[in-house]
Protein backbone atom coordinates (compact mmCIF):
# COMPACT_ATOMS: atom_id res chain seq x y z
CA UNK A 1 0.00 0.00 0.00
CA UNK A 2 1.03 3.55 -0.68
CA UNK A 3 1.63 5.66 2.40
CA UNK A 4 2.51 9.28 1.92
CA UNK A 5 3.09 11.06 5.21
CA UNK A 6 3.44 14.81 5.63
CA UNK A 7 5.28 16.13 8.67
CA UNK A 8 4.23 19.70 9.43
CA UNK A 9 7.37 21.82 9.73
CA UNK A 10 7.03 25.12 11.52
CA UNK A 11 10.74 25.57 12.06
CA UNK A 12 11.02 24.33 15.62
CA UNK A 13 13.87 21.86 15.75
CA UNK A 14 14.47 18.31 14.82
CA UNK A 15 11.96 16.67 12.48
CA UNK A 16 14.41 14.18 11.06
CA UNK A 17 13.70 11.66 13.79
CA UNK A 18 10.02 11.43 13.09
CA UNK A 19 10.57 11.48 9.32
CA UNK A 20 13.21 8.72 9.56
CA UNK A 21 11.03 6.66 11.86
CA UNK A 22 8.12 6.93 9.41
CA UNK A 23 10.35 5.74 6.58
CA UNK A 24 11.67 2.97 8.77
CA UNK A 25 8.16 1.57 9.37
CA UNK A 26 7.29 1.65 5.69
CA UNK A 27 6.11 5.09 4.58
CA UNK A 28 6.60 5.24 0.83
CA UNK A 29 7.08 8.99 0.93
CA UNK A 30 7.66 11.49 3.72
CA UNK A 31 7.26 15.21 3.04
CA UNK A 32 8.48 17.72 5.61
CA UNK A 33 6.80 21.04 4.89
CA UNK A 34 4.39 23.78 5.94
CA UNK A 35 3.11 24.43 2.43
CA UNK A 36 -0.61 23.61 2.08
CA UNK A 37 -0.16 22.13 -1.42
CA UNK A 38 2.56 19.72 -0.28
CA UNK A 39 0.58 18.71 2.79
CA UNK A 40 -2.53 18.20 0.64
CA UNK A 41 -0.67 15.61 -1.44
CA UNK A 42 -0.14 13.37 1.59
CA UNK A 43 -2.70 10.89 2.85
CA UNK A 44 -1.83 11.36 6.53
CA UNK A 45 -0.22 14.07 8.62
CA UNK A 46 2.13 14.25 11.63
CA UNK A 47 2.08 17.37 13.78
CA UNK A 48 5.25 17.29 15.91
CA UNK A 49 6.65 19.83 18.32
CA UNK A 50 9.54 20.52 20.63
CA UNK A 51 10.61 23.56 22.60
CA UNK A 52 8.74 26.28 24.41
CA UNK A 53 5.03 26.70 23.65
CA UNK A 54 5.17 30.47 23.09
CA UNK A 55 7.73 30.19 20.29
CA UNK A 56 5.88 27.18 18.85
CA UNK A 57 2.54 29.00 18.78
CA UNK A 58 4.14 32.08 17.28
CA UNK A 59 5.69 29.99 14.48
CA UNK A 60 2.51 27.97 13.92
CA UNK A 61 0.47 31.17 13.44
CA UNK A 62 3.13 33.00 11.43
CA UNK A 63 3.39 30.14 8.94
CA UNK A 64 -0.37 29.56 8.76
CA UNK A 65 -0.09 26.08 10.22
CA UNK A 66 -3.17 26.74 12.38
CA UNK A 67 -5.36 27.04 9.29
CA UNK A 68 -3.51 24.19 7.62
CA UNK A 69 -4.10 21.85 10.52
CA UNK A 70 -7.75 22.83 10.77
CA UNK A 71 -8.22 22.00 7.06
CA UNK A 72 -6.46 18.66 7.36
CA UNK A 73 -8.41 17.64 10.45
CA UNK A 74 -11.86 19.02 9.75
CA UNK A 75 -12.21 19.60 6.00
CA UNK A 76 -10.10 16.75 4.58
CA UNK A 77 -10.59 14.33 7.47
CA UNK A 78 -7.08 12.87 7.11
CA UNK A 79 -5.56 10.85 9.93
CA UNK A 80 -3.45 13.16 12.11
CA UNK A 81 -0.87 12.20 14.71
CA UNK A 82 0.21 15.00 17.07
CA UNK A 83 3.31 14.44 19.20
CA UNK A 84 4.40 16.07 22.48
CA UNK A 85 4.30 19.87 22.11
CA UNK A 86 2.25 19.26 18.95
CA UNK A 87 -0.37 17.68 21.21
CA UNK A 88 -0.10 20.54 23.72
CA UNK A 89 -0.49 23.12 20.95
CA UNK A 90 -3.91 21.63 20.11
CA UNK A 91 -5.31 22.52 23.53
CA UNK A 92 -7.08 25.72 24.61
CA UNK A 93 -4.36 27.17 26.74
CA UNK A 94 -0.97 26.35 28.28
CA UNK A 95 0.48 27.48 31.59
CA UNK A 96 3.97 27.55 30.06
CA UNK A 97 5.72 30.91 29.40
CA UNK A 98 3.35 32.76 31.77
CA UNK A 99 0.30 31.50 29.91
CA UNK A 100 -0.12 31.04 26.17
CA UNK A 101 -3.32 30.74 24.13
CA UNK A 102 -3.12 27.63 21.95
CA UNK A 103 -5.17 26.35 18.99
CA UNK A 104 -8.27 25.30 20.97
CA UNK A 105 -8.79 22.38 18.58
CA UNK A 106 -9.28 20.25 21.69
CA UNK A 107 -10.82 21.91 24.75
CA UNK A 108 -8.63 21.71 27.81
CA UNK A 109 -5.51 22.97 29.52
CA UNK A 110 -1.80 22.27 29.55
CA UNK A 111 -0.60 22.33 33.16
CA UNK A 112 2.77 22.41 34.91
CA UNK A 113 3.67 19.39 37.05
CA UNK A 114 4.54 21.79 39.86
CA UNK A 115 7.69 22.68 41.73
CA UNK A 116 7.46 20.29 44.66
CA UNK A 117 6.07 17.42 42.63
CA UNK A 118 5.84 14.18 44.65
CA UNK A 119 4.47 10.68 44.25
CA UNK A 120 1.85 9.18 46.58
CA UNK A 121 4.52 8.17 49.11
CA UNK A 122 5.88 11.72 49.30
CA UNK A 123 9.02 10.92 47.30
CA UNK A 124 10.11 13.92 45.27
CA UNK A 125 9.77 13.52 41.52
CA UNK A 126 12.06 15.28 39.08
CA UNK A 127 10.65 17.72 36.55
CA UNK A 128 10.94 17.41 33.54
CA UNK A 129 9.32 14.01 33.51
CA UNK A 130 12.13 12.54 31.42
CA UNK A 131 12.61 8.93 30.45
CA UNK A 132 10.73 5.70 29.89
CA UNK A 133 7.38 5.48 31.60
CA UNK A 134 4.41 3.21 31.08
CA UNK A 135 1.23 3.77 29.12
CA UNK A 136 -2.05 2.21 30.19
CA UNK A 137 -4.44 2.29 27.22
CA UNK A 138 -7.79 3.72 28.36
CA UNK A 139 -9.69 2.74 25.22
CA UNK A 140 -9.43 0.29 22.36
CA UNK A 141 -7.93 2.05 19.40
CA UNK A 142 -6.29 0.89 16.15
CA UNK A 143 -3.08 2.73 17.14
CA UNK A 144 -2.71 0.57 20.28
CA UNK A 145 -2.72 -2.64 18.23
CA UNK A 146 0.16 -4.89 19.28
CA UNK A 147 1.03 -2.66 22.25
CA UNK A 148 0.66 -4.31 25.64
CA UNK A 149 -0.78 -2.43 28.64
CA UNK A 150 2.11 -1.07 30.68
CA UNK A 151 4.45 -0.83 27.69
CA UNK A 152 7.12 1.85 28.18
CA UNK A 153 7.50 4.89 25.95
CA UNK A 154 9.91 7.81 26.06
CA UNK A 155 8.60 11.01 27.62
CA UNK A 156 10.24 14.38 28.08
CA UNK A 157 7.99 17.19 29.30
CA UNK A 158 7.31 19.51 32.21
CA UNK A 159 3.71 20.28 31.23
CA UNK A 160 0.88 17.84 30.72
CA UNK A 161 -2.46 17.93 28.94
CA UNK A 162 -5.79 17.92 30.79
CA UNK A 163 -8.66 17.63 28.27
CA UNK A 164 -12.04 18.99 29.34
CA UNK A 165 -13.68 15.84 28.00
CA UNK A 166 -12.03 12.92 29.83
CA UNK A 167 -13.66 10.47 27.40
CA UNK A 168 -11.09 11.38 24.75
CA UNK A 169 -8.19 10.21 26.95
CA UNK A 170 -6.79 7.23 25.04
CA UNK A 171 -4.08 6.28 27.52
CA UNK A 172 -2.60 7.39 30.82
CA UNK A 173 0.76 7.57 32.60
CA UNK A 174 1.48 7.75 36.33
CA UNK A 175 3.87 10.40 37.59
CA UNK A 176 2.65 11.80 40.86
CA UNK A 177 -0.69 12.14 39.11
CA UNK A 178 -2.57 10.22 36.46
CA UNK A 179 -1.71 12.11 33.30
CA UNK A 180 -2.95 12.01 29.74
CA UNK A 181 -0.42 9.98 27.73
CA UNK A 182 -2.55 10.01 24.59
CA UNK A 183 -5.85 11.32 23.38
CA UNK A 184 -8.05 10.22 20.49
CA UNK A 185 -10.96 11.90 18.79
CA UNK A 186 -12.23 10.97 15.35
CA UNK A 187 -9.30 11.27 12.91
CA UNK A 188 -6.94 12.74 15.53
CA UNK A 189 -4.54 10.79 17.74
CA UNK A 190 -2.10 12.65 19.97
CA UNK A 191 0.65 11.43 22.25
CA UNK A 192 2.57 13.13 25.05
CA UNK A 193 5.39 10.61 24.64
CA UNK A 194 7.66 10.45 21.61
CA UNK A 195 6.83 7.33 19.55
CA UNK A 196 9.73 8.15 17.21
CA UNK A 197 12.10 7.82 20.21
CA UNK A 198 10.40 4.86 21.85
CA UNK A 199 12.17 2.06 20.03
CA UNK A 200 10.01 -1.01 19.26
CA UNK A 201 6.85 0.11 21.05
CA UNK A 202 7.02 3.50 19.39
CA UNK A 203 7.70 2.06 15.96
CA UNK A 204 4.71 -0.27 16.40
CA UNK A 205 2.48 2.73 17.08
CA UNK A 206 3.85 4.58 14.03
CA UNK A 207 3.31 1.52 11.87
CA UNK A 208 -0.28 1.38 13.12
CA UNK A 209 -0.68 5.05 12.23
CA UNK A 210 0.47 4.33 8.66
CA UNK A 211 -2.39 1.92 8.08
CA UNK A 212 -5.00 3.76 10.19
CA UNK A 213 -8.17 4.79 8.36
CA UNK A 214 -8.84 7.67 10.77
CA UNK A 215 -11.71 6.15 12.69
CA UNK A 216 -11.71 5.35 16.38
CA UNK A 217 -13.28 1.90 16.31
Amino acid at each position, binding site marked *: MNHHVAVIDYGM*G*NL*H*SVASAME*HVGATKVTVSHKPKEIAAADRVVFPGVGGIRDCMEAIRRLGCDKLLDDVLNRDGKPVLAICVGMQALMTRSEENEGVACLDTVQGDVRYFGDAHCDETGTRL*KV*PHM*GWNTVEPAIDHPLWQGIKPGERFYY*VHSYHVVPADQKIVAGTFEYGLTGCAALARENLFATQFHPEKSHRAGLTLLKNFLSWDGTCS
Partner: protein
Amino acid sequence: MALAKRIIPCLDVDQGRVVKGVNFVGIRDAGDPVEIARRYNEAGADEVTFLDITASHEERDTTAHTVEKIAREVFIPLTVGGGIRALSDIRAMLNAGADKVSINTAAIHDPDLVREAAARFGSQCIVVAIDVKCVSTQGKAPRYELFTHGGRKPTGIEAVEWAMKMAEYGAGEILLTSMDRDGTRDGFELTVTRAIADAVDIPVIASGGVGTLQHLAEGVTQGGADAVLAASIFHFGEYTVGQAKAFMASQGITMRL
Protein backbone atom coordinates in the same frame (compact mmCIF):
# COMPACT_ATOMS: atom_id res chain seq x y z
CA MET B 1 4.77 1.36 37.54
CA ALA B 2 7.12 4.22 37.82
CA LEU B 3 9.52 6.05 35.60
CA ALA B 4 12.37 3.68 34.72
CA LYS B 5 16.00 4.45 35.49
CA ARG B 6 18.02 4.69 32.32
CA ILE B 7 21.16 3.02 31.01
CA ILE B 8 23.07 5.21 28.58
CA PRO B 9 26.03 3.81 26.67
CA CYS B 10 28.41 6.60 25.79
CA LEU B 11 30.34 6.82 22.56
CA ASP B 12 33.45 8.94 22.91
CA VAL B 13 34.25 9.83 19.35
CA ASP B 14 37.51 11.10 17.95
CA GLN B 15 37.58 11.89 14.24
CA GLY B 16 34.66 9.64 13.45
CA ARG B 17 35.78 6.64 15.51
CA VAL B 18 34.56 5.48 18.91
CA VAL B 19 37.32 5.50 21.52
CA LYS B 20 37.51 5.21 25.28
CA GLY B 21 40.56 6.11 27.30
CA VAL B 22 41.70 5.51 30.83
CA ASN B 23 41.58 8.92 32.51
CA PHE B 24 41.42 10.34 28.98
CA VAL B 25 44.82 8.95 27.96
CA GLY B 26 45.75 5.60 26.37
CA ILE B 27 42.77 5.51 24.08
CA ARG B 28 41.68 2.22 22.49
CA ASP B 29 39.74 1.97 19.24
CA ALA B 30 36.30 0.39 19.56
CA GLY B 31 34.92 1.09 16.15
CA ASP B 32 32.39 2.82 14.03
CA PRO B 33 29.93 5.09 15.90
CA VAL B 34 26.98 4.35 13.61
CA GLU B 35 27.47 0.61 13.93
CA ILE B 36 27.86 0.82 17.71
CA ALA B 37 24.84 3.09 18.15
CA ARG B 38 22.74 0.69 16.08
CA ARG B 39 23.97 -2.23 18.20
CA TYR B 40 22.97 -0.41 21.41
CA ASN B 41 19.60 0.53 19.97
CA GLU B 42 18.92 -3.15 19.27
CA ALA B 43 20.29 -4.22 22.65
CA GLY B 44 17.74 -2.12 24.53
CA ALA B 45 19.78 0.90 25.56
CA ASP B 46 17.52 3.66 26.86
CA GLU B 47 19.49 6.44 25.17
CA VAL B 48 22.83 6.91 23.46
CA THR B 49 25.27 9.71 24.19
CA PHE B 50 27.83 10.79 21.64
CA LEU B 51 30.73 12.87 22.94
CA ASP B 52 33.07 14.40 20.40
CA ILE B 53 36.23 14.49 22.50
CA THR B 54 38.49 16.27 20.07
CA ALA B 55 35.95 18.55 18.55
CA SER B 56 37.49 21.48 16.76
CA HIS B 57 35.47 23.77 14.58
CA GLU B 58 36.92 22.23 11.42
CA GLU B 59 35.57 18.83 12.44
CA ARG B 60 32.04 20.04 13.20
CA ASP B 61 30.76 18.95 9.82
CA THR B 62 32.11 15.44 10.31
CA THR B 63 30.36 15.24 13.66
CA ALA B 64 27.08 16.54 12.27
CA HIS B 65 27.31 14.02 9.44
CA THR B 66 27.88 11.13 11.87
CA VAL B 67 24.96 12.33 14.02
CA GLU B 68 22.78 12.40 10.92
CA LYS B 69 23.67 8.82 10.07
CA ILE B 70 23.00 7.66 13.64
CA ALA B 71 19.68 9.51 13.86
CA ARG B 72 18.49 7.80 10.70
CA GLU B 73 18.78 4.36 12.27
CA VAL B 74 18.49 4.84 16.02
CA PHE B 75 15.01 5.34 17.45
CA ILE B 76 15.93 6.14 21.01
CA PRO B 77 17.05 9.55 22.32
CA LEU B 78 20.45 10.73 21.17
CA THR B 79 22.56 13.27 23.07
CA VAL B 80 25.50 15.00 21.44
CA GLY B 81 28.25 16.85 23.27
CA GLY B 82 31.78 18.09 22.77
CA GLY B 83 32.76 21.48 21.41
CA ILE B 84 29.32 23.04 21.81
CA ARG B 85 30.08 26.74 22.21
CA ALA B 86 27.24 28.75 20.73
CA LEU B 87 23.55 28.67 19.93
CA SER B 88 24.48 27.97 16.31
CA ASP B 89 26.35 24.78 17.38
CA ILE B 90 23.26 23.62 19.26
CA ARG B 91 21.01 24.39 16.30
CA ALA B 92 23.36 22.45 13.97
CA MET B 93 23.34 19.34 16.17
CA LEU B 94 19.56 19.41 16.68
CA ASN B 95 19.09 19.82 12.95
CA ALA B 96 21.41 16.88 12.34
CA GLY B 97 19.09 14.73 14.45
CA ALA B 98 20.26 15.05 18.05
CA ASP B 99 17.52 15.15 20.66
CA LYS B 100 19.68 16.76 23.32
CA VAL B 101 22.89 18.70 23.33
CA SER B 102 25.37 18.63 26.17
CA ILE B 103 27.18 21.83 27.11
CA ASN B 104 30.29 21.70 29.27
CA THR B 105 33.10 24.27 29.19
CA ALA B 106 31.06 26.87 27.32
CA ALA B 107 28.60 26.98 30.22
CA ILE B 108 31.46 27.87 32.57
CA HIS B 109 32.72 30.66 30.32
CA ASP B 110 29.23 31.93 29.54
CA PRO B 111 26.45 30.65 31.84
CA ASP B 112 23.92 32.75 29.93
CA LEU B 113 24.41 30.40 26.97
CA VAL B 114 22.47 27.80 28.99
CA ARG B 115 19.71 30.28 29.73
CA GLU B 116 19.46 31.38 26.10
CA ALA B 117 19.63 27.82 24.77
CA ALA B 118 16.88 26.65 27.12
CA ALA B 119 14.67 29.58 26.14
CA ARG B 120 15.32 29.04 22.45
CA PHE B 121 15.24 25.25 22.12
CA GLY B 122 13.55 24.18 25.37
CA SER B 123 15.07 22.82 28.58
CA GLN B 124 14.32 19.27 27.44
CA CYS B 125 17.24 19.35 25.01
CA ILE B 126 19.82 21.14 27.14
CA VAL B 127 22.11 18.91 29.19
CA VAL B 128 24.81 20.57 31.27
CA ALA B 129 27.87 18.36 31.65
CA ILE B 130 29.87 18.82 34.82
CA ASP B 131 33.37 17.33 35.26
CA VAL B 132 34.34 17.26 38.92
CA LYS B 133 37.33 16.35 41.07
CA CYS B 134 37.56 16.09 44.80
CA VAL B 135 39.86 18.77 46.12
CA SER B 136 41.14 18.53 49.67
CA THR B 137 43.06 21.17 51.49
CA GLN B 138 44.65 20.21 54.79
CA GLY B 139 42.43 20.94 57.76
CA LYS B 140 39.36 21.49 55.58
CA ALA B 141 36.56 19.17 54.51
CA PRO B 142 37.08 17.88 50.95
CA ARG B 143 35.01 19.66 48.34
CA TYR B 144 34.11 18.92 44.76
CA GLU B 145 35.20 21.37 42.13
CA LEU B 146 34.62 21.75 38.42
CA PHE B 147 37.57 21.01 36.16
CA THR B 148 37.97 21.63 32.45
CA HIS B 149 40.35 20.34 29.76
CA GLY B 150 39.76 16.67 30.54
CA GLY B 151 40.28 17.21 34.26
CA ARG B 152 43.54 19.14 34.04
CA LYS B 153 42.36 22.68 34.69
CA PRO B 154 40.70 23.71 37.97
CA THR B 155 38.02 26.38 37.91
CA GLY B 156 37.47 26.96 41.62
CA ILE B 157 33.73 26.45 41.10
CA GLU B 158 31.99 24.26 43.67
CA ALA B 159 30.05 21.46 41.98
CA VAL B 160 26.75 21.36 43.92
CA GLU B 161 26.25 25.12 43.76
CA TRP B 162 27.03 25.04 40.05
CA ALA B 163 24.52 22.28 39.38
CA MET B 164 21.84 24.25 41.20
CA LYS B 165 22.68 27.36 39.23
CA MET B 166 22.52 25.49 35.93
CA ALA B 167 19.14 24.00 36.85
CA GLU B 168 17.90 27.49 37.65
CA TYR B 169 19.23 28.71 34.28
CA GLY B 170 17.09 26.15 32.49
CA ALA B 171 19.23 23.02 32.10
CA GLY B 172 16.98 20.00 31.61
CA GLU B 173 19.46 17.47 32.90
CA ILE B 174 22.90 17.24 34.57
CA LEU B 175 25.55 14.85 33.25
CA LEU B 176 27.95 14.45 36.16
CA THR B 177 31.38 12.93 35.52
CA SER B 178 33.92 12.26 38.23
CA MET B 179 37.33 12.90 36.71
CA ASP B 180 38.86 11.06 39.67
CA ARG B 181 36.98 7.92 38.70
CA ASP B 182 36.76 8.18 34.92
CA GLY B 183 38.46 5.17 33.37
CA THR B 184 39.42 3.64 36.73
CA ARG B 185 36.62 1.01 36.90
CA ASP B 186 36.37 1.69 40.65
CA GLY B 187 32.72 2.75 40.49
CA PHE B 188 30.94 6.10 40.49
CA GLU B 189 31.92 8.86 42.91
CA LEU B 190 28.76 8.33 44.94
CA THR B 191 29.15 11.18 47.43
CA VAL B 192 29.04 14.00 44.91
CA THR B 193 26.44 12.18 42.83
CA ARG B 194 24.14 11.98 45.85
CA ALA B 195 24.78 15.59 46.82
CA ILE B 196 23.85 16.88 43.37
CA ALA B 197 20.92 14.50 42.85
CA ASP B 198 19.46 15.70 46.16
CA ALA B 199 20.12 19.36 45.43
CA VAL B 200 18.47 19.72 42.01
CA ASP B 201 14.97 18.97 40.73
CA ILE B 202 16.16 17.95 37.27
CA PRO B 203 17.42 14.44 36.38
CA VAL B 204 21.06 13.59 37.05
CA ILE B 205 23.12 11.16 34.96
CA ALA B 206 26.03 9.54 36.82
CA SER B 207 29.21 8.99 34.83
CA GLY B 208 32.81 7.96 35.32
CA GLY B 209 34.28 4.81 36.80
CA VAL B 210 31.92 1.95 35.97
CA GLY B 211 33.67 -1.43 36.07
CA THR B 212 30.93 -3.79 37.22
CA LEU B 213 27.15 -4.15 37.09
CA GLN B 214 27.07 -3.51 40.83
CA HIS B 215 28.54 -0.06 40.13
CA LEU B 216 25.67 0.76 37.80
CA ALA B 217 23.12 -0.23 40.44
CA GLU B 218 24.92 1.77 43.15
CA GLY B 219 24.74 4.90 41.03
CA VAL B 220 20.97 4.72 41.42
CA THR B 221 20.50 3.16 44.85
CA GLN B 222 23.25 5.10 46.63
CA GLY B 223 24.03 7.97 44.31
CA GLY B 224 20.38 8.80 43.65
CA ALA B 225 21.03 9.14 39.91
CA ASP B 226 18.17 8.98 37.40
CA ALA B 227 20.38 7.48 34.73
CA VAL B 228 23.78 5.82 34.53
CA LEU B 229 26.26 6.28 31.74
CA ALA B 230 29.04 3.85 30.82
CA ALA B 231 31.28 3.15 27.89
CA SER B 232 34.00 0.53 28.03
CA ILE B 233 32.12 -2.19 29.93
CA PHE B 234 29.67 -2.24 27.04
CA HIS B 235 31.97 -1.47 24.12
CA PHE B 236 34.24 -4.41 24.70
CA GLY B 237 31.43 -6.86 25.24
CA GLU B 238 32.10 -7.60 28.92
CA TYR B 239 28.43 -7.06 29.64
CA THR B 240 25.43 -6.49 27.44
CA VAL B 241 22.92 -3.74 28.13
CA GLY B 242 20.39 -6.52 28.73
CA GLN B 243 22.54 -8.09 31.46
CA ALA B 244 23.00 -4.69 33.07
CA LYS B 245 19.26 -4.05 33.06
CA ALA B 246 18.44 -7.49 34.44
CA PHE B 247 20.96 -7.01 37.23
CA MET B 248 19.66 -3.56 38.14
CA ALA B 249 16.09 -4.84 38.13
CA SER B 250 17.18 -7.65 40.47
CA GLN B 251 18.37 -4.94 42.86
CA GLY B 252 14.85 -3.53 42.99
CA ILE B 253 15.43 -0.75 40.46
CA THR B 254 12.64 0.02 37.98
CA MET B 255 13.97 -0.64 34.48
CA ARG B 256 12.58 -0.88 30.95
CA LEU B 257 13.17 -4.56 30.26
